[in-house]
Each structure stands twice: as C-alpha cells, then as structure tokens.
C-alpha cells in the first residue's frame, strides 16, 4: 500500500486530497477546488473601483493581521491590484502530474470534494469508477451548478474569452505585483501555474455526474471483485462520509473531517471503522483552528489510558455533546445578532454556504423571529435554493436521529417548509428575479452565496450595505483577513466572523484511536508534532507529508482462500510416508476473486484427463538397496554398482537392469534417472520409485 498526500487542503471548503495505491489499484480520494484562491480576482462591481481608489484603505486594514502588516512595509495592497478578468479556478496542483487514465477509483467523501471532479472527467482517458453517497452527489451537483451560474455573471461582464492561456497571469508576473497575490497565483515554490483552470460548463457537470455510482451509507460495493468499499457517515455534513476498504490483503479505513455529534447530518459512525489494519487519519481541521495551545503539544489525558479498557466510557467521552452544544450556541448567537440589527433597522447578510449550518440557521432564525414578533422577511437568494431546500426534506435517511424522529411523528425534517408556505422565507433564484423586487423590504435577513465574496448575489448586497453601520455581515472564518474584504473597503457594517466545528478535536484523537484499535495509523506530520502519541503503545504510527509517497508494509497474514466443500471432497489426499501428521493434496478447479476473497471453485471437468499428465514432484531420497528389492518384487532384476562422481564426494549408485530389457538406473542424492529404451520397463521402474518416495 502506498499513500501520497496530494494536498492537505484548507478548512471545510478545501478538503484534503490523497492518492492511494491499494492492491494494485490507484484510488483518488476527493478532488476539491481551492475556491479561496479566487479572491485575487475582482468581483463584478461597476462603481466600486472608482470609489475604492478614492479612499486610502490603510485605516480600515486589520492592524492585527501579520500578513498585511508585512505588506504595509512593502507596498499597500489596493483594490486596483486585484485581477479584473474572468476568474480561473485553482485545482489540486499535483493531481495534474498523475495520468488521469491510470486512476481506477475515485472516492468522494463530501460535496466539497466533488467540485473539482469535472476537470478530471473532462480528460478523454478518464475511466475510473467514481463512488460517492447519494446525498453528496445531489448536493455536490447543485453546488457545482450554482458555481457555474454565478460564474456566468463574470462571463457576461468580461465577454467571451477563448484563449487557452490567461492574459492576467502574464501581468501578474511583474515586479510591482504584491507578493501576496503572487503567492496565491504561483504558490510557495512558484510552480502552481498549471493548476489554474477555466471553469467547467453545465455539460461537463452532467457528463461527470453520469459517471458517478451513488451509494448509501454502509452499502457494500465491490470493485472488480477485489475491493469492497463502504461509505460510513462522518457527521461533517449531509452525505459526508469516511471510507472503509476491505481487500484481500487487509482492511483500510479513511477518516476525513468528522464530527462526533452533529445536529443535522448523521453522527460520525466510528463503530464501523473498528479494528482495521490501516487507518489513514486525514482530518486537518485541527491545524487550521486557533485552539491549538501555545506549546503546540497536547498530551492525551492521563485518564484516557485506563479508560480505554472499558470501551463504553470511551464512547461516552467521544460522544459528549459539549461540542455540539457549543455549535448550537454559536448559531443562536448569530440569530440574536441578526435580530438585534433588525431591531435597529439594519439588514443582515449571511454568506455562509455550508448546507447544514444554513438549514439550522434558517430554522432557528425563523423560529426566533416568530417568537419576537419582528416582521423581518428572510430571503434566500441562490439559483439552487428551491431545489436544495426541497431536497433536504426528502432525505430523512441521511439526517441525524432527532430529524429521523420527526419523520416518525410525521413532521418534515427541517422547519423551513412551513415558513416558505407562510411566506416568511422567500426563495429567489437570482438577485434580479422580478419577484424579489416586488417583495423587497428592508431591513431583511438574506442568505446569499458565495462565501468567498467574489461570486453571486452577496457581492451586490454587500456593496449596497457596506456603508450602513446598522447592518450586519456574517462571514465564515478567515475571509475578512487578507484579500477577502479588499474590494469593499471601507466597511462600516458590523462584521460577525464565525468558525464552525469542522473536524475532530485534537484532544479526542488518542481516545478515538484507542477505540478504533487499528494496527497502523497514518497521520499527517503536523498532527504528529502537536500530539503526544507515546501512550499508544500497541499502535504503530507513521507520518505522511504532503507530496511525498509513503509506503506502508503489509501487515495482514497471507490472504486466505476459500475452498468449496464439494471441491474439497474431490481432492485426492495423500498421507506422507515419512511424516505422519501431514496430509497433502493437489488442487483442482479454478481460483476466482469474489467479494474481495479468493475462492477456489470446481472448474471444467475436462481437466480430469490431462490432470495426470502433470509433472510429479518427489522429495526424500532413494536407497539403492530398497529400490533393488522393490524392483525384484515386480520382476525386474538388477545389479548394483557404486560409482564415484567427478567431484569424488558424491555417491552415485547405478543399477543395471538386464531383464526383461536392458537399461540402467542412476540414483543420487539429488535425483534418479531411468535410462532405457523400453517404455514398459521405464514405467515399471518409475512406479517402483514412486512407491518409495513421497510425492505429489
């Protein structure tokens, strides 16, 4: 088994990407798109450009940000520095170094990991089997379609550009371009240029989705009869999953960003991952979050060591709802902030696009608005909003237990359906839809993509409200720093930046591993540096690095072969003469690979006749005297002659046969040769030797 980490990703929207070589099959895990890179492009705002250049923007800059501090010394980054062109999209760079036609399997573990897949399937040689959960496929497809429709705005603005090489890259290569931009475009080492791609079209998405095989949670799919692949829920988002791969050479589990207790999606199903041979831990979320302690090293709780003996306690510590309560508090805080600003007459713009968060927020917000008797409409502006919200109410199987109980009691899974009917929540496909104008009312609460603040309706709305100190902007973590808000500066709006839990907390990792008990764990080197694995004595831990191939030795026993009973009864058994407790038999039939197992089944019967014609194997040694005796019994007389071999040490014996026809038998330690021109005699002699030796 070989693992190459192609990219360690960046947060929820850019999951890690790996290439795995297992049983000779090449498996690509996730194919994301680095959407944060489009921040280098300027959004489609006609009037902002002039306004922004008027203001000296350094006042508004976040003084605490070290990156920008550095740039202050260098040169002020202004709006004019942003690339005013139709944006290109940054894919996983090392993926282009692999031949797409050699990939056998693609596993997509969450909708974010699907966004880059059309780039791969465009390749004419691409022939891999793509697995993902049904919910991932549906939500991912909607997200891609939304991306394409939002991108169409740029296309309208900048006009068609069919050149295969983007002109803007040439412009960026100049001296005076800020280093921050250069870093995003060319990467740390300056070779990222090849990863920029022009966005795919709706046709590409359609043809990509046609190649997908959608699975359910815990459904076993068999690839090529060899690998049994199973998706188990990871709790990160609706449809997000971890993978369990069972092959003839052992089992492997892949743990991506996972959340133990989720309020919308199914919980992290870690019971299914227990006891695998290899566990690939690919949760980088803990590295992004600021919670890592100053000394950078968290040793597992001393309690954990003895708790691990009783697994039930362990599970409790994993499944404690602390985190999820914290998450709920965050959401409630957002709601209260929105209500506050609505009270003050300001609008709220929420640019969060994590589907689970949006669904919960919608429900919470409409409930809180109803109870507070505030008459504030909620708008959801997205080309796929209607379809997505309708879809989320038809997938109780993919949701958490609370939502499933709602199904039993006959309620819809998410409350937004009722509010949409009551005209509390309005859905619009685009900001210019005619119905939006008629029902427009301020203050309001708007859910609008895209989180990068470069695409979609959020750009126009932000531009409208940025000068209004009463309004509120709810952002995902990490957007406001650096390039994110640059085109909209100066901003008078209140900004609420929230980070949501998007993975396993580092403290829980040792406990998780002691529950799962894998034989080998592969962890990113960065994680290993921060956590003390010394307590995990029974588990061997290997580090992997980005863009380096790690070879993992096989630890399972020899693969087992299953023999059908009717075939086993047909085998001709031999007891060995010289070793009593051995029984041997030559195999028959055909070896198949079925459901990841080698299976020996009875083949065609025609082999019977030619089966005897196989060369026989003998072992042991022949004593010339006993051979003479055996020959006498069948009526062949011979005389023994001892001869010395050329080396002098070898004791070759030669038996001369005179009756019934002439010949000689040469007996040595290594073997016996029968030399005669009479076939009958030869076969008789052979049988006599066969009677003395063990053979098969």
């Amino acid at each position: 088994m070989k693992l190459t980490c192609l990219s360690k990703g960046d947060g929820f929207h850019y999951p890690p990407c790996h290439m795995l070589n297992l049983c000779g099959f090449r498996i690509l895990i996730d194919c994301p798109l680095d959407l944060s890179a489009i921040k280098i492009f300027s959004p489609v705002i006609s009037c902002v450009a002039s306004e922004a250049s008027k203001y000296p923007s350094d006042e508004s800059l976040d003084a605490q940000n070290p990156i920008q501090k550095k740039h202050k010394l260098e040169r002020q980054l202004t709006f004019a520095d942003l690339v005013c062109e139709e944006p290109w999209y940054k894919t996983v760079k090392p993926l282009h170094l692999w031949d797409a036609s050699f990939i056998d399997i693609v596993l997509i573990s969450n909708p974010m990991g699907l966004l880059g897949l059309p780039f791969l399937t465009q390749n004419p040689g691409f022939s891999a089997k793509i697995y993902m959960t049904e919910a991932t496929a549906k939500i991912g497809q909607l997200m891609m379609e939304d991306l394409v429709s939002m991108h169409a705005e740029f296309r309208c603005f900048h006009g068609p550009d069919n050149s295969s090489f983007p002109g803007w890259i040439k412009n960026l290569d100049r001296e005076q371009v800020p280093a921050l931009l250069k870093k995003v475009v060319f990467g740390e080492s300056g070779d990222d240029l090849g990863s920029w791609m022009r966005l795919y079209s709706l046709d590409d998405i359609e043809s990509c989705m046609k190649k997908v095989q959608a699975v359910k949670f815990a459904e076993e799919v068999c690839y090529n009869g060899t690998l049994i692949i199973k998706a188990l829920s990871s709790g990160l988002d609706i449809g997000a999953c971890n993978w369990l791969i069972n092959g003839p050479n052992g089992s492997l589990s892949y743990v991506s960003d996972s959340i133990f207790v989720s309020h919308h999606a199914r919980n992290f199903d870690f019971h299914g991952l227990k006891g695998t041979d290899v566990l690939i831990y690919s949760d980088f979320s803990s590295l992004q979050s600021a919670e890592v302690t100053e000394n950078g090293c968290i040793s597992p709780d001393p309690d954990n060591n003895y708790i691990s003996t009783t697994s039930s306690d362990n599970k409790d510590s994993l499944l404690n709802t602390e985190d999820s309560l914290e998450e709920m508090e965050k959401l409630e805080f957002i709601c209260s902030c929105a209500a506050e600003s609505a009270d003050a007459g300001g609008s709220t713009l929420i640019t969060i696009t994590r589907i689970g968060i949006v669904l919960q927020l919608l429900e919470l917000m409409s409930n809180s608005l109803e109870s507070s008797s505030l008459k504030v409409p909620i708008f959801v502006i997205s080309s796929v909003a209607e379809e997505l919200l309708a879809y989320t109410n038809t997938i109780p199987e993919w949701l958490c237990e609370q939502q499933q109980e709602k199904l039993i009691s006959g309620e819809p899974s998410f409350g937004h359906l009722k509010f949409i009917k009551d005209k509390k929540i309005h859905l619009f496909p685009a900001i210019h839809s005619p119905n939006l104008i008629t029902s427009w009312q301020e203050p309001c609460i708007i859910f609008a993509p895209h989180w990068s603040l470069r695409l979609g309706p959020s750009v126009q709305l932000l531009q409208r409200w940025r000068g209004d100190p009463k309004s509120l902007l709810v952002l995902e973590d990490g957007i406001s720093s650096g390039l994110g808000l640059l085109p909209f500066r100066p901003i008078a709006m209140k900004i609420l930046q929230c980070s949501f839990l998007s993975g396993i907390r580092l403290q829980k990792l040792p406990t998780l591993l002691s529950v799962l008990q894998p034989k080998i764990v592969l962890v990113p080197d960065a994680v290993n540096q921060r956590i003390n694995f010394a307590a995990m004595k029974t588990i061997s831990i290997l580090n992997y690095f980005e863009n380096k191939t790690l070879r993992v030795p096989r630890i399972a026993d020899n693969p087992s072969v299953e023999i059908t009973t009717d075939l086993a009864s047909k085998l001709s058994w031999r007891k060995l003469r010289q070793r009593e407790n051995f029984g041997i038999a030559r195999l028959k039939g055909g070896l198949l690979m079925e459901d990841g197992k080698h299976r020996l089944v009875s083949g065609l019967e025609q082999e019977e006749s030619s089966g005897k014609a196989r060369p026989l194997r003998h072992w042991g040694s022949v004593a010339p005297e006993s051979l003479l005796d055996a020959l006498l019994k069948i009526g062949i007389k011979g005389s023994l002659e001892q001869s010395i071999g050329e080396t002098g040490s070898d004791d070759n014996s030669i038996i001369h046969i005179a009756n019934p026809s002439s010949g000689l038998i040469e007996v040595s330690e290594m073997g016996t040769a029968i030399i005669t021109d009479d076939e009958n005699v030869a076969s008789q002699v052979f049988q006599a030797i066969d009677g003395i030796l063990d053979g098969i």
Partner: protein
Amino acid sequence: MAIDCLVLGAGQEIGKSCVVVTINGKRIMFDCGMHMGCDDHNRYPDFSLVSKSGDFDNAISCIIITHFHMDHVGALPYFTEVCGYNGPIYMSYPTKALSPLMLEDYRRVMVDRRGEDELFTTAHIANCMKKVIAIDLKQTIQVDEDLQIRAYYAGHVLGAVMVYAKVGDAAIVYTGDYNMTTDRHLGAAKIDRLQLDLLISESTYATTIRGSKYPREREFLQAVHKCVAGGGKALIPSFALGRAQELCMLLDDYWERMNIKVPIYFSSGLTIQANMYYKMLISWTSQNVKEKHNTHNPFDFKNVKDFDRSLIHAPGPCVLFATPGMLCAGFSLEVFKHWAPSPLNLVALPGYSVAGTVGHKLMSGKPTTVDLYNGTKVDVRCKIHQVAFSPHTDAKGIMDLTKFLSPKNVVLVHGEKPSMMILKDKITSELDIPCFVPANGETVSVASTTYIKANASDMFLKSCSSPNFKFSNSTQLRVTDQRTADGVLVIEKSKKAKIVHQDEVSEVLHEKNHVVSLAYCCPVKVKGESDNDADLIKQLSEKILKTVSGAQIHESENFVKKKLMSSSDSTAARDQHAPLLRPRHDGSSSSSSSSSSARPTALAVLLGRITGHRAPSMLVRETAARALEERRIDWGYSKPVVAADILWNAALVLASAVMLVGTVEERPNEPIRVWICGYGLQCLIHVVLVWSEYWRRNTTRRARDLESGDHEDYSVYDYEQDSDNSTTYRLSVIFLAIDVFFAIFCVVLACLVGIALCCCLPCIIALLYAVAGTEGVSEAELGVLPLYKFKAFHSNEKNITGPGLLHMSELIRGWCRAS
C-alpha cells in the same frame, strides 16, 4: 451446518406472515403478521413453537419486518409487549414511519367500531416502535459478529424490502411481498445476483400471468367516470397507505386531463397524513416519480379534499376513498351500507380481499344482499368494479426472480395451496431447484454452504494470476489453463491449512527435492560410412540442441549401437502422437543423464527452466505456420481443383476446335484462325503441365507418407525433410507473389478503366455541354422545329369552344417562343 426454516404463518395460506429461519445457529424471524380473516387465537402465529419457555430474547437474534401491511406487522406489538421480546427489530425507514399508523388504525377499527377486546394498546405500539432500528436500502447491517443483513427494494408498497441474511458462508433471501413490474408510484423489485442457499418467496399469484396494467387502469378510470357522470357516488374502500395513493394519483391525473370537477374525498385524516409521509419518503418511490419531484411533488393532489360524515347523504356525485379496505369493518362498511342500495353508485374494490370479509363476498359473485357482521342485511344494487391491480408479482415474476438468483433451495409461502403446488412443480422441473411448500408449523431443513479456509502463499497466488496455458491435441487441439493445479494443499495436524506452490512444498515439509527423470533411447539409422559416425552424431546433437531447447544429449558407450538419447519426461514419452508439440515436452522439464556424462542434473533442470519458458510457444507457432502453408499448397493441387482446371481448359480447346471446323467457309479479314489455334494450343499445354505436376506431387507425397510412417520416431529425418522443402517452398512463394502482383495489377487496371468510363465520361460530356451550350438553342435550330397554331371552331353565335385544330404556321414564330 444447516438452515432450518420454520413456518409459523402464511404457510399454504395468505395472512399472518411469519417465518423463523435458523442459519448456523442464528435465529431470525421474518415478519410478524396477523391474520385479517380470523378472529380467534389463530389470528397470531403460534410463537410457542419458537420457544416453549417464552424466553424469546435468547431464542431469536432479530426480527425483520419487510413492510407495513397488517399481515406482516400486525402481531409485532403483541409479540414484543405481551410475549416480551426485547431484541432488535429491523424495518426500513418508511415501514418504521408508517407501521404505527397502520397498527393504530387497525386497533381503532377493532376496538372502537367492532367492540372487541383490545389486543394491544396505543402504548404498546409506541413501546414496540421504540425497539425498532430503521435501515436503508442496501445498507449492510452487522447484527452481531456473524449475522449480516441487507435490505433490497421490493416495490410492493412504500418501503417494502426483500431481506438478505448471511451467517458465516450461508446466505438466504426472504422476499416478503414483492412486485416485479414498475407501478404508478413504485419501482420494480431490485436485487443483486447473490449466492444463496435458500430463497423464501411469496406466491400470492402462483399461477396467474398478468399482462400490461394500462388497460386495467383505463377500465377503472372509465368505470369511475361513468358513475360520476351519471350523478352516482363512487366508493373505493382501501387501506390508507399504498393503494389509496396509487389510485389517487391515477384519478388526480385523469381529473386534470378531462377537466372533471367532481370532488375526490379521503375518508380520514389518516390518508392525508399518509400523503405527507409519501412526500417525505419520495426517494423510495419509482424513478419516474422521483424525476418529477424536482418541479412538483406528485403526492400534492390538487382535487383531493377531506371527507366529513355529513357528506354521506349529501346529493351529487363524488369519489370517496374510505378505510379500511376489504370492507371488513369501520367507516368504509358504514358508507357501503348507505350507498349500496342505489344503482347509480359504484363500489370499486382494489386488490385482494381475505375470505370472510364483505369485500370477498362482493368479489366472489354478484350477490343481491349481503350480511353484515351484526346481522343486518343490505341490498346491493350498486355496480361493483373489481380493480385488478395487485402489487404482488405474478407467476412469471416469481420464476424470473428464482432464475435470476438461482438459489440452492426454494421455499414458497404466502399463497394458496393448489396453485403453490403447481408452481412448486414448475420450479422443480424447469429450474431444477428443490422447492418446498411447508404448511404452518412445519420445518424445512436444507444444507448450507460452508467453505474450507486455507492461507495461500504469495507464490501460489502470483502463479495463479498469470495465465499458464497448456496445449494438447489428442483428437483436436485443446487449450487448458490449470494454474490451480500448481497449488498443493498442505494440512498439518492442529494447524491451519496452507496452500503453497508445488515448488514450495519441500520447504514446507523440510525435505529435499528428489528429481525422478526418464531418459529415452531412440535409434537413429544413418546411411554412410562408419568412420564419420562420431561427426554425424555430433551434427545431429547440435541440430537437436538448436531446435529443442533444454534438451540434453549424450552418447553412451554402453550400448552396442550409437544411441541418441532425447530427454523426456515419463508422461511426455507416452504422449508421442503430438508431433507438433513434441519439442515442448522436452523443453519443459527434466533432463537425462548417463554414466559417462558428468553434467549435474540440477543444472540442467535450471537451464531448462530458463531457456524453456519462451521457446515452446514460439516453436509451436512456427510449426503451425509451416503446416498451414504446406496444407495450402496441397490444397492447390487437390483433386477437385485440378480436375476443374483441366476440365475448363479442355472445354476451351474443344470449343475452339468446333469453331474452326464450323467456319471453314468464312474468309475473315484478320488472321483470326491463327489466333484461335494458338489459344487452343496454349490450353492444351496447360492441361498437360497441370496434370504432370499433379501426378508428380501425388507420387512424392505418397512416398513421403510411406517414409514418415516407417520412421515416425526419427525426428532428425523430419527436420532434414523440412529444410529440403523450404527451398521449393520459397520458390513457390516467389511464383505466388508474381501471380498475386499480376492479379492485383489487372484488377486495378480494370477498375481504373471502369471508373474512367463510368464517372469521368459523363463528367466530360457534361463539361463539354457546359462549354458549348451556354447560348441555348440557335436561331437555325429553332427554325427546324415545327410550329403549331391553335384555332378554335366557333359554332353559330355562341362562343363555345369546341374541338380546335392545330394549324402549322410559319408566321407566328415569335409568339410561340414567348409562350
């Protein structure tokens, strides 16, 4: 290891489905239903057969419910709450959501309307449902360490599943009720090809084969339409779930199309609520419905309203879906009582009615009066329409599924005995699968699959993964690939069995290999002087070594004659009638040795292994090609070909002779006679030459056949012959090449001429026309044309145009041209 299948219910009957299967010690209960037609203790399956002590938790590993119909889930609250089963229960999501509704509805009907004792309470249902674990399609559930279950789509009602259960190596499928054709709102049953020991299938329609559903749908719609158009009321008694939605979809669609405004009512809030479930569980419906879902949820019925009790006597037409189906009790029966006496009204009975219900009575004949349960009689004057939709599969479907899965055994349940027997015979005879039809309380035992497990060595697996073809031609060329026969199964006492490659056996046994080889002596007859015997033998050996890889040859002084020892295996030596492949046997293994040779045998084996791997296949190919070439040349000189050739040429000669004789008087300008003579002569010479060649070949071949028959074993001779042949062979190839060249040349030439004639000529003509004829017809040419003038006869004053006359006129040329 065995599988025991104990049928507690639905054995040779329909109702109270309950089958307990024991697979390798694990006991699973499939379905837990009640009988709708019975009121006594027979209503429930006899659970005491499972466990006498009543300790069901240990007796049963899990219960799996396939769908929410009462005859599949009805006894579950009784079993869990009254009998005290606390183990896991598995249901699909829709079944889990909808079963409590069904159970509650049934309980209400039984208790509130018919005044019976409560079998189970609402609390019982709620408690029971808490124990249920919901499963998704194809989700593989590990119930405990050995038992694995998986659900497949069955298409009978929303959420109906077939269940696959596996313990160790033994696996079974319990189908529940299923439908093999796509419904208006549900898809067809879908299952993987599985290796099964036992298939337990329903057989409601064991002998019926149904055609398309569309005519029946049309019939139903027309009947309802006719009724409401005539001002009548249509009553459709059905259960709240499943059939009601299907028919309602049908009607709603029809109402839309025909623009009918007659209201459609649902009798209880239950059905409305059920529609809500259908909307949420849309992923369990058919593909067609799912696709429509993006724009409009097909379970949002536009014309459907809630029914109120006061509407029973309201005038005007309406359509009413009333629960329960089969008219066994409750509201539907009440409405029936009021509506049945009017001949305008219609009762449409969908689906199956259990014997003993009013529905069954209506369907079985055309009764004028019907006894209700409490003794009252009702005149039945209304029309009765039987909707023959059934979500059960027909006989063909059962056979198709059985054939597709091809299990080792089949058990039929959920059907009527006579037709089940017919189906049983059909399965036994047509599919050759043992089939059982157990009655209630009977047990069927079948053997289960077990595999013997052994660890395989890498070398064996590697050798198995690459093809290892063997050729043999006893009667015709046969290719076999028996890689597995290289493997040896080794069992040591009190250790796990191992599979190793044959080369590894000695290592495993801690023994040394011992090679038994056979050397074959064959005489070589050599003409010539005895002096250069040694030289000759040397040459021979070299030649053999060259052609036969891995062979070892040496002289032996111990024999009177010079002998050539061609090494060979004992088996190969017996297999001599394979001249094409003989060298391969030599090359494949072993060696020979004798007293004078000191060459170590092991080395020879090694050499043979190294060199012998590729050469045999090459050799085979070469020899085969050579044989094919020879045969082709032979074919050219085969009797019929030669005869045809000679005959044809003789006919030509004869024809020319006859021509010459017949035209003695003629004096042609050209010396054509000389030409004919020459041609005849050429033909004659051809005949003679061909005949002589044929004769020569025939004699040589016969001679060769004789020779080769004599010295079959003298491979050396064969090789020499071969080399001799090769020169003539080369010559013939050259001739053939020239022949082919000329043939191709001629054909190409002919083609070129043909193309030129066919394509170019018209083009050229057209071009010429185009060049020459641009001005149109010349004045002179026009002058040649005859000109006519029309002149009508006028009779009296009337200007009636009669038959006219065409006058030739030279004068009005211009007018003619203009027209």
